[in-house]
């Protein structure tokens, strides 16, 4: 299917990825090619087929409600780009 640049830009926004104009250009073309190829799936009649979301014949995996050890703040914040005391700091969220 044809993939307009607007659609790609929309999807990029949805994915929170900023694209340079050249990137947008190149990616649009490449994605269009991939989607055309993927269109091959339309050849199949899948009306009576159920989808496979989970390949394993496994169900009801549960865990008991008993507390486990948590990470200490220094461990959980060790990789934080902007730690502030015990918090993860981000640019102000405007509601």
């Amino acid at each position: 299917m044809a993939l307009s640049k607007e659609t790609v830009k929309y999807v990029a926004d949805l994915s929170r990825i900023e694209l340079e104009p050249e990137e947008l250009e190149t990616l649009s073309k490449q994605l269009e090619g991939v989607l055309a190829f993927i269109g091959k799936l339309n050849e199949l009649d899948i009306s009576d087929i159920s989808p496979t979301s989970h390949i394993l014949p496994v169900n009801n995996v549960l865990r008991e409600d008993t507390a486990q050890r948590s990470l200490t703040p220094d461990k959980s914040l060790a990789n934080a780009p902007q730690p502030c005391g015990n918090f993860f700091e981000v640019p102000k969220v405007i509601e």
Partner: protein
Amino acid sequence: MELFKLTASALLDKLSRKETTPEEIFKDLSQRIADTDNKVKAYVRLDQTKDRRPETIDYSLPSIVSKPLAGIPVSIKDNICTEGLNTECCSKILSGFNPPYDATVIKKLKESGAVIFPAKTNMDEFAFGSSTENSQFGPTHNPWDLDRVPGGSSGGSAAAIGADEAILALGSDTGGSIRQPAAFCGVVGLKPTYGRVSRFGLIAFASSLDQIGPLTKDVRDSALLMNVISGHDPMDSTSVDIPVPDYTKSLVNDIKGIKIGIPKEYFVEGMNPEVKTIVEEAINKLRSLGAGHKPVSLAHTDYAVPVYYILATAEASSNLARFDGVQYGLRAKTSKLIDMYKKTRGEGFGQEAKRRILLGTFALSHGYYDAYYLRALKVRTLIKQDFDRIFKDFDCIVTPTSPTPAFKIGEKSDDPLSMYLSDIYTISANLAGIPAISITCGYTKAGLPVGLQILAKPFAEETIFRVAHTYERNTEWHKVKPKL
């Protein structure tokens, strides 16, 4: 002493006879890497690990004797979390990420006495690729021909084994990322049954397809490693509670009566003639060893790649949504929050990552979900059913691992579709959740390895080991080493 050339089982033998020590092995291997990796570039961030030494374990303790991999170094792909050792998926966006926890497989390795090698192996960023060219650290070079790719995405681990720069290695396989590089680098690579090995600590690409698996010099080492890393994990809801057999017991030299299916869809007009010939010879060899084979049909083979590129990218787009600069990794310098997300991800992700995230997001988006994602889930059912049908009458399926031997660096990097199609033989196993191995079955005239893939039904790794080991015992391909 050239200990680095030996297999893990040979080293374990020497260790038990006190002919060497873990320190000696580690030193020898480190020297090999220092001598060779500037050419192969199998490892990343080596400079950060220069002075690292593995934990000192007292190998004279009796308790160590019971440890199956005591003293053996294992090299780990950069997408498996190792506490205290950077794990970055070879991506800018995870630069500097030092996990506060070990993946379950790493815990198991440590408990088995293995030594986690303190440098990670190279990979395509987030496992997106079939050539290890998508790494932020540059490509790994195939030890058999340094101008060629080692395959991907576990190209670093495969090349390290191939170049004797690793004794044992772990990789991950979502669409062939262990098997295809194993084939390109002339080593053994196994993708276990989905759910056989815990995914806890594996930085996810496609949650319903990913598996961690061994890359080794021979089939015996693969079985040794599988014994350690397999098993149910309460931290992974998709890991299966089925007992782990002793896979080394499957290492018999006997395949009499084994029924092999050869899918006709994998041997098509126009396939690489050398690959065709070499693989057909391997199949004949198996027959001469007592296995029977018949042609079979995996009717939906042609749909595997498109299904994969919807499902895998959709799951990837979701799994990678968390990389936003808030808690770890790269954070772009901005004043507004939304810019932080957009710029961090714009700067932090490489081109292939962006392509896949966009494709995956598109497939899940409103209005396209049914036509793409849901449709792909249904075709996945058809692909699984193809295999179920065949495994009713056959013990395993044998195919080439890759349509071509290793291609040149840069050859496919401008054509994503061409790159995707190189996964055509490996992808179906992930979609069906079945185990599959690649072992070397010959070399092209140019001296490049060719891989033979053996697939079996879920949790039948024992069958795979039996067939692979028998073939290996009766051939010499695995003993050939690249000239480095």
